[in-house]
């Protein structure tokens, strides 16, 4: 299933702002931000802490709604969807990888990876098979019966990636996926993401503080004071 980078636009963010209320004070995190991401891109998002990287990622992933502006994914206005439709859209189109893995501690790796498939119409056997394939892709076929606490951080994160790709989503969103890992495990995760991008054509947005990590991406953008730029501003 190798997808050729067709350079058609997958993500279009236009004039987006997100306002948070802290007491009576309003904080504008993203000041009318624009962003286009072509299909098949591996985008690294950098910027100082508190600049709004996670906020932007949440808007693109449909985990939150903008206070202003439009978010279009594959030509669809997701900020206008009802909660219910948005949840279904996320299940279908978004794979999420978190800094702290966010696996269910009471489920085995296999069951954790099967979790998103519960929302599909797939049979039990089919779910099992797909989860096994996803775990194989991330190199964890030998760990399927293990619980998160029985795995290293790197293995947990690979399980997290397996869970994110098991539904074959359109977009893979990673918020500091190597932020909690040592160099070696982090590199393995980056190898994996890079392979997913290059071999399977997955579009990836990765938030990171690490220039080494960003170097693996096809493009790097810096977020500062609510605006994106191609250059780091100090």
């Amino acid at each position, binding site marked *: 299933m190798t997808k050729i980078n067709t350079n058609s636009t997958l993500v279009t963010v236009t004039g987006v702002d997100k306002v948070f209320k802290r007491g009576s004070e309003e904080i504008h995190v993203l000041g009318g931000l624009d962003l286009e991401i072509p299909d098949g891109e591996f985008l690294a998002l950098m910027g100082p802490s508190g600049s709004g990287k996670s906020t932007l990622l*949440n808007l693109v992933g449909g985990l939150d709604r903008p206070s202003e502006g439009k978010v279009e994914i594959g030509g669809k206005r997701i900020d206008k969807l009802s909660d*219910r439709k948005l*949840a279904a859209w*996320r299940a279908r189109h978004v794979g*999420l990888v978190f800094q702290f893995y966010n696996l269910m501690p009471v489920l085995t790796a296999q069951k954790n990876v099967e979790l998103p498939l519960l929302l599909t119409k797939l049979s039990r056997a089919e779910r099992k098979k797909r989860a096994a394939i996803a775990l194989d892709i991330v190199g964890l076929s030998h760990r399927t019966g293990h619980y998160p606490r029985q795995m290293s951080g790197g293995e947990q994160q690979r399980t997290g990636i397996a869970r994110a790709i098991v539904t074959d989503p359109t977009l893979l969103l990673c918020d500091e996926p190597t932020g909690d890992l040592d160099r070696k495990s982090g590199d393995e995760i980056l190898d994996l993401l890079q392979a997913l991008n290059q071999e399977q054509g997955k579009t990836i947005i990765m938030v990171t503080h690490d220039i080494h990590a960003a170097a693996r991406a096809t493009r790097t953008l810096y977020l500062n004071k609510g605006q994106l730029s191609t250059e780091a501003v100090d």
Partner: protein
Amino acid sequence: MKYFYLVFSSLKRKKLRTLLTVLSIMVAFVLFGYLTAIRQAFDAGVEVAGADRLIVRHKVSIIQLLPESYEDKIERLEGVDNAAHSTWFGGIYQEPRNFFAQMPMEPEELFDMFPEYIISDEQKAAWLETRSGALVGRGLAERFDWKVGDRIPINATIWTKKGGGRTWEFDIVAIYDGVEKGTDTSQFFFRYDFFDETRAGGTGQVGWFSVRVNDPDRAAEVAAAIDAEFANSAFETKTEPEGAFIQGFANQIGNIGFIIMSIMSAVFFTILLVAGNTMAYAVRERTGELAVLKAIGFTDRGVLGLVLGESLALTLVGGAIGLGLAWMLVSMGDPTDGSFPVFYIPFSSIFLGFALIALMAFIAGILPALQAQRLQIADALRR
């Protein structure tokens, strides 16, 4: 049920807490089942009381006697189908704790008046032939392992024999069964003719009359007519429906139904707090995980369902085990060692038990479930 393991695996999270909660719920339902059986034992007589039967007793109190001759007078009144008398014997078999009711009855009238007692034709014939014969309920016979042909000595506390003896001896000639589960088979009947000629005092006097009316809808009218008939006589009467009479009898010990309801309410309220507390913590501890489920694509409603499902799993496991244990305990015998006329958990109460389980699951789980439903992903993931 593909979400089944998801619900159950979340109960494994805090095993000790889950275990303790399940145990408390279990205890509540053991109590529910057991107390229901006790209550049923007291209510059984009332429930199966003949709707067409009245009880005529002395106006002052049940222990005062009435003349046997009232039977004919009652039967002559309009609306009365038949009347038969009974008397409280109040004897002791071996020791006072072996309590059961003994009553001298009119041997033939018995079956006409109380069709709920069933015996074989053969035994009926023996009962009609044997003056010292006793007719005992199946439950009573099993309690003391009595068989037809056994001779049973009963020590009188009220009725001494002519010549001063206190030990009455009866020959068991028949054992009756009940038409339904609730029928009282704990009684010991013997013959009035034998009783009347053997007792030292009180000849010609009986305890109360059972009266069957032609039309149950007019029972109140007939009752009034009976009391009017004997008004201003030396023995004034009070007539009431059999159910009310039995209820009054049971209420001598106290309002059992009320006492049991009070205990149950207190227990369930406490357990509800325990279960509610468990669910509240279960949700609060995993806001992150619930947010991840939503991020993955679970709907708000779906997460609500998961939490309610978890609450149901918790109460269902505890409740079902509790009801099962109660069933076992109850089938092992009643706490008075056989003095209850009946002792079982009615099917309707098992059903009610499961309804309570569902209700408890809902009440304990609904607030945490709504909290989970309202959870905003982005907020929850930041915590």
